[in-house]
């Protein structure tokens, strides 16, 4: 199993103002499987995604990626898993502003030590970025930036892609186009995908959907 989430709980703040964000959430995601994570604002979707990325640790329960408990790792260990096993696509793109498109695309693959120029060239081609390789992020439109971010996440051939409302910052038409590309590419790469979205239409295109409500799987 690629991703196993077992009875995870997470809260923020301390007692009187304590907010229980997740309670007893469990989830299985097999290699190549796509799962949509839906729910109201504040239902804990993003928190769950962050926990899966090792950006934060669960209070209770376990999250295993390829069998390794990500919550039990040190900062360096979790960073290593993110580098090697996970590709993340943010709502805010989070490109490196001082690097051009080519360098941004190659960045995570280089960090993982899996730089494959041919793969990146193909990705750039399919993402329609071939003519933009020497531009800088601030010279790109939002849709272009998100395509770079998707390319960056996939370039290192990770087993798991985590996406946090990747089209949330894009208009509908652009968002749909970007999403098509992304789903195609994830499918071609055979990666697992866990995607937070509030779009029913998007969720419907995934293998499965998991609906969170008030921190629980509904």
């Amino acid at each position, binding site marked *: 199993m690629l991703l196993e989430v077992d009875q995870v709980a997470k809260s923020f703040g301390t007692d009187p103002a304590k907010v229980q964000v997740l309670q007893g959430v469990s989830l299985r995601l097999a290699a190549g499987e796509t799962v949509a994570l839906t729910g109201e604002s504040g239902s804990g979707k993003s928190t769950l995604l962050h926990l899966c990325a090792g*950006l934060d640790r669960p209070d209770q329960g376990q999250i295993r990626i390829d069998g390794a408990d990500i919550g039990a790792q040190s900062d360096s260990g979790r*960073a290593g898993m993110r580098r090697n096993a996970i590709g993340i696509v943010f709502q805010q793109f989070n490109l490196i*502003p*001082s690097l051009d498109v080519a360098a941004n695309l190659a960045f995570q693959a280089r960090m993982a030590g899996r730089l494959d120029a041919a793969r990146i060239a193909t990705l750039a081609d399919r993402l329609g970025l071939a003519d933009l390789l020497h531009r800088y992020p601030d010279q790109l439109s939002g849709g272009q930036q998100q395509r770079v971010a998707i390319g960056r996440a996939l370039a290192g051939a990770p087993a798991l892609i985590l996406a946090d409302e990747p089209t949330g910052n894009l208009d509908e038409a652009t968002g749909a186009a970007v999403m098509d590309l992304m789903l195609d590419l994830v499918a071609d790469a055979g990666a697992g995908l866990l995607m937070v979205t509030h779009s029913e239409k998007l969720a419907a295109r995934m293998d499965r959907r998991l609906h969170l409500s008030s921190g629980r799987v509904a």
Partner: protein
Amino acid sequence: MRRAVLQALLSHWRRHKLQGLSLFLGLAIATALWSGVQAINAQARASYDDAARVLGQNRLERLVPPPDAVISEQTYVVLRRGGWRVSPVLSGMWQGDVRVLGIDPSTLPMGSAPAQIGQGLPIQDFITPPGLGYAAPETIALLKDTPGLPPLTPVPDLAPGLVMVDIGIAQGLLGREGQISYLLVDPVQPLVQAPLGDLAPDLTRQAPDAGNDLARLTDSFHLNLTAFGFLSFAVGLFIVHGAIGLAFEQRRPLFRTLRALGVPLRDLITMLLAEIVLLTLVAAGAGMVLGYLIAAWLLPDVAATLSGLYGAAVSGELALRPQWWGAGFAMAFAGVALASGQSLWRLARLPVLAPAQPRAWLRASVRSLRWQGLVAILLALAGIGLAWRAEGLIAGFAMLAALLLAAALLLPVLLAALLALAERLGDRAMLRWFWADTRQQLPGLSLALMALLLALAANVGVTTMVSSFRQTFTGWLDQRLASELYVTAADEAQGAALRDWLAPRADAVLPIWDVTAQAAGRPVAVYGVADHATYRDHWPLLDATSDVWDRLAMGDALLVNEQLARRAGLSVGDPLSVAGLPAPLTIAGVYSDYGNPLGQVIVSVDTLVTHFPDVPKLRHGIRIAPDRADDLRRAMQDELGLSPDQITDQAAIKAFSLGVFEQTFAVTGALGVLTLGVAGFAILTAQLTLAAMRLPQLAPVWGVGVTRRHLAGLELLRAVLLTALTMIFALPVGLLLAWVLLKIVNVAAFGWELPMGLFPRDWLLLGGIALLAGGAAAAWPAWRLARLQPARLLGVFAHER
């Protein structure tokens, strides 16, 4: 992974070249000024040490003759034949500015001359006329083609301006056949020897110079330089702090992204450290080279100053010393650590998911301002505490540092308060926006403004000190140089003839005769003065009894200079014993004696001649109506056969003295200008950096219909306004600095106090320069703003986050 990350981090500088440049230049200039000053100081100290080491001055005992006497060769032979292992030395000035040192290689104690002397050269060449001289390479370069000197061989360790020859050759060069200045006492003496008192009762045994007098005397000068160097370094550090802080804040989203993409925190910090070290190495390296150039440029002035003020010879050629490189880099790293420590600390504690808000850095938090104000007040209190109990140079400078830092920290607090007040008073929307916007910019500019404040205050302080000094000094010169002509007789016979000849022709002939004697445990010059209106009317007394001149003329009182009074703790009414005078005399007055490091005593000329009958009676001041001075000078030359260089007129002496004085502060002036330049640069870079980040603030104003030209004008106005406010604040700080320099540092260093003058014209000039610098620094960003593509402003709306 590391290469990719380092590349991502460094690529920031490629996209923010100006920021990189300001960091680089800030650090380079800070290192340059600091290390340049250090290089100068090290060079000077090495020169003093060379001088002190000459002939084991710092190590060997000597036998010295009574003041103004010499040792005869006969006495030398008597001592040697009495079993005393002593070695003769003749020291004298050749043609005014070359110190000739004659030694006897056959008796010179082990290790008292530089190693290279006597290597591979035939002894007969050394002792047989014309002989052979040893001198430092730069001395040889200076003396090249000077006829009359023996051939010279370079020896690097010799003090500048010194030529070492055989004693026989020295006697010939100096025209002092048969004379010896002093005898070096070999540390190894035989088991049996005749008592020194029987052999040479006139000679006294003098202990080696434990400390280095020159070093002590010149300490204050070097401390002044060091203080200035440090100030420049501090100004540079403000730039570095600003640039590094900004670079960290701007890259916070990047740091977050990197961590999200799988860079462990520890690696990130390590690589940021590597980046800083790399930048520091490059910038500090460049700074060291620049510092060397600054030092090489300033050193001739410094050397001139030191020789003018103290007679200390300093080599005008700079030697690169390894410790200087080490210290320079250490200083640069310490400075960068200080500037970047806070940023790194914050990063280390930052959670991965913390919101990345670069602008937070620019937001003035009331709390931090309050803290800053509190620290400033504490520092000021510490400074005042030091002033209360300050003693000595170090305390004086520590106090200066505390006060300056307090003032710098207080500046943003004061400016923020002023701007808030203005905002409240303004009623027009545009004006209110201007004030509010200025206040919002303050945090980004405050480091640069603090640097400017320090530079301006230092300049105000130093110009005030120098001008006060100059004012007092010229006044004092007018008093001291009251005689119209000064004449020096070649020998006693000519002196007597001169006095007889002048008696009917001049209004008065005032003897300027002196001997060296001991008083209050230190060597002093004892002068004899005639009872004459010249002194009664002009002599610059700081404190005196009412009948001072009558008592002096009667021979039962004396005057001391301020230096002697301060060092020996003497005041009017105290008795003072002078070796050679039969009884202690009462101090009837204390007079100012600027620029003289030594103690001085004045008695009546009769007292001097009675008790020191051998006093050379050669120098005289001549009072005469100024319009007759030229005729008299010509008559002295024609009728008495005096050479022109025996007669000096008042104007020439004054010009020379003022020249020495101007030299003294030429270096300080140059450093002041450099510091101001650095501060101007700090403002420029701060403005440029802010300009790029300010589009989101400007776009809405532009959007509501204010033209870009208008906006640019406001930017310029803001810069000038802030500079002006800083200048106004710098003025009292600078005056405080001057006060400390004159009343505390100067007394501790030189032994005299100076009245402080106020020189508003200097301030206006400085203020003008500062406004110009501030305006110029803002002009470029403003010009860019005026010509900004509207699309970029529109982009702000499109990308509003």
